[in-house]
């Protein structure tokens, strides 16, 4: 296997992994705080991408503005789905499958509203209009400015989220909600406010990831749906509760989809049409063999640190 192929697939793993991390953290956050495996998350990604696309088609703006718009629009859509659908259902004390089904329904509605929108504006499979330039070139590797944006921005957003969760009163309240909703309510945490912030953060992160995704490939109404099971695989690797586990999971999934796939193709002749199956196989194996994902591993690290 040629060195260039390996290096470029590693770069792709890194780039996709950062985006998966942004998306999967949202899944983990919704699952911990809202107690919902949210399949509509896919559509927040697509909404962000479309917001960015429509903006860049109509005005020439810098990447930062694009990202901010994607964040805001996707965050508002996520909040809307909470206010209109998930909150009323929660108040009726429905079972978790009802919530799961509802999240599918929300996703379905959003996806086909986007289809209608894309159909009327005739914007299928368009790339978000951000100029790509090459920032680094060698024999084995070409890096564009997109790579230089994606990875640091994702790392920055993840750090921001971790800081929010660990060092602010709001983050403490979120974690309290994640551990025990009733207890959190009893000690006077304003549950509704925390949930609203959670939804905004979840949607916003997905929106930014969607915008980046649309810059490096192209935007269509199914993009989020096609990514969502890979993203779920990442979140499940994190045990759906651990944030460092989810981030590690995102990179494991991206690495398996790109580099591992490349290696399997080269040595075992596995066809590239099997690539979409990789995250699914990861999900099945993890759920059957190690449903806690990487959670234990990070807990052990933490306890060791305290014991010392």
């Amino acid at each position, binding site marked *: 296997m040629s060195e260039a192929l390996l290096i470029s697939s590693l770069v792709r793993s890194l780039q996709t992994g950062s985006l998966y991390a942004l998306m999967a953290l949202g899944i983990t956050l919704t699952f911990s705080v809202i107690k919902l*495996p949210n399949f509509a998350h896919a559509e927040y990604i697509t909404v962000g991408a479309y917001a960015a696309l429509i903006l860049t088609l109509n005005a020439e703006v810098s990447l930062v503005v694009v990202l901010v718009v994607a964040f805001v629009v996707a965050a508002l859509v996520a909040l809307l789905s909470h206010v209109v659908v998930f909150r009323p259902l929660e108040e009726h004390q429905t079972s978790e499958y009802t919530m799961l089904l509802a999240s599918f329904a929300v996703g379905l509605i959003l996806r086909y509203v986007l289809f*209608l929108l894309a159909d009327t504006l005739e914007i299928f499979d368009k790339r978000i209009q951000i100029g790509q330039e090459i920032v680094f070139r060698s024999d084995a590797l070409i890096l564009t400015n997109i790579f230089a944006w994606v990875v640091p921005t994702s790392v920055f957003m993840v750090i921001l989220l971790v800081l929010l969760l660990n060092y602010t009163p709001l983050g403490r309240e979120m974690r309290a909600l994640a551990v025990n909703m009733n207890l959190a309510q009893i000690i006077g945490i304003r549950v509704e406010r925390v949930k609203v912030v959670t939804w905004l953060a979840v949607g916003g992160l997905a929106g930014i990831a969607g915008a980046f995704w649309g810059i490096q490939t192209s935007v269509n109404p199914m993009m989020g749906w096609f990514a969502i099971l890979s993203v779920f695989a990442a979140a499940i690797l994190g045990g759906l509760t651990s944030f460092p586990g989810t981030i590690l999971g995102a990179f494991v999934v991206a690495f398996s989809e790109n580099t591992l796939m490349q290696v399997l193709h080269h040595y075992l002749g596995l066809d590239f049409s099997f690539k979409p*199956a990789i995250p699914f196989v990861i999900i099945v194996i993890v759920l059957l063999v190690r449903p806690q994902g990487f959670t234990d591993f990070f807990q052990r690290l933490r306890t060791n640190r305290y014991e010392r």
Partner: protein
Amino acid sequence: MTFDVVTTGIALLTYFGIFSLMAISLNLEYGLAGVPNFGKALFVSIGAYTAGVTYTRLLPIIAGHTPLNPCGETLGQALQLRSEIMQGQPVAGFVNFGITLVIAALIGGVVGYGLSYITLRLKEEWFLALVLLVGGEILRITVRGYSPIICASNGVAAVAQPFSFFDDVRTASVAYMLLVLVLALMAYIYAERLTRSPFGRLLKAIRESDRVAQSLGKDAARVRAQVMMIGSAMAAVAGVLFAVNIGFVSTNDYVVALTLDVWVMIVLGGMANHRGALLGVFIITVLDRATAVVAVQLSMSDISIEFNYVRFILFGVILLLMLRFRPQGILPEKPQTTQVADGFARTS
């Protein structure tokens, strides 16, 4: 294209029968036993792929020909041979169809039992939903990538229904419709009897609390695996009927959306009430056909709105409204009493 009421009616009733089988199977699994089977597409596709294999390998042998490779250079010849057999040798067609149904039910049942036996021991119950959902996608991608099953992404054409030896197309489709409806009716009667049997009561008990059932010495996981076996066999039969109805086996038909359609049907009609499930299937198939007709009519006029998208939005809205305002469905579950309880009610 003019709008033909009779043809539309036949197509509608055929779809109604096929989806009734799927909805009843899901109603047994989720409605009665509380097993969240989000892998309906997986089991339906097993039936469809089985049909793809038997029509290309078994059918020529039954008809006394040597089977040709259905995918490669002999694709055209194999296809022609298939349609000639289906039109000229009805007995071979029926034998092949019958064997296909049996094999599909067997494979579906075994896979359903095996998968549930593993997944029912998962840490959280909704993991089962996810594993089955993902399992369907894995099977789909594998079949699409691995050519010998149904020629990868090309699919298998000319999977004709067994009545296609009739010269008149309408007679053939009416006969097939009746066959499908009889199978659906059998499934309905079976499900009703199962629900009223001690096994049905056990399923409901496990749905309400598997711990209580276990404390009474019932193996909850095993009973759920059994109901998954029944439901999956039924879904695989529905898959054969589905593939044979459209005459084509392709991996593109058995996606997550199919599973969701079946869920919408039972949530709408009423969980744990088979009559409700049938009502849900009826409403959704009528809506489905109606929106398809509207879409065709609209595409011929000047209105440039893609109505197929509206259809999905409509399904999503129906599902949400039902979950929010009438989670028990249009026809809710009937309370079940025994004669002893009736006696107590009368004396007290």
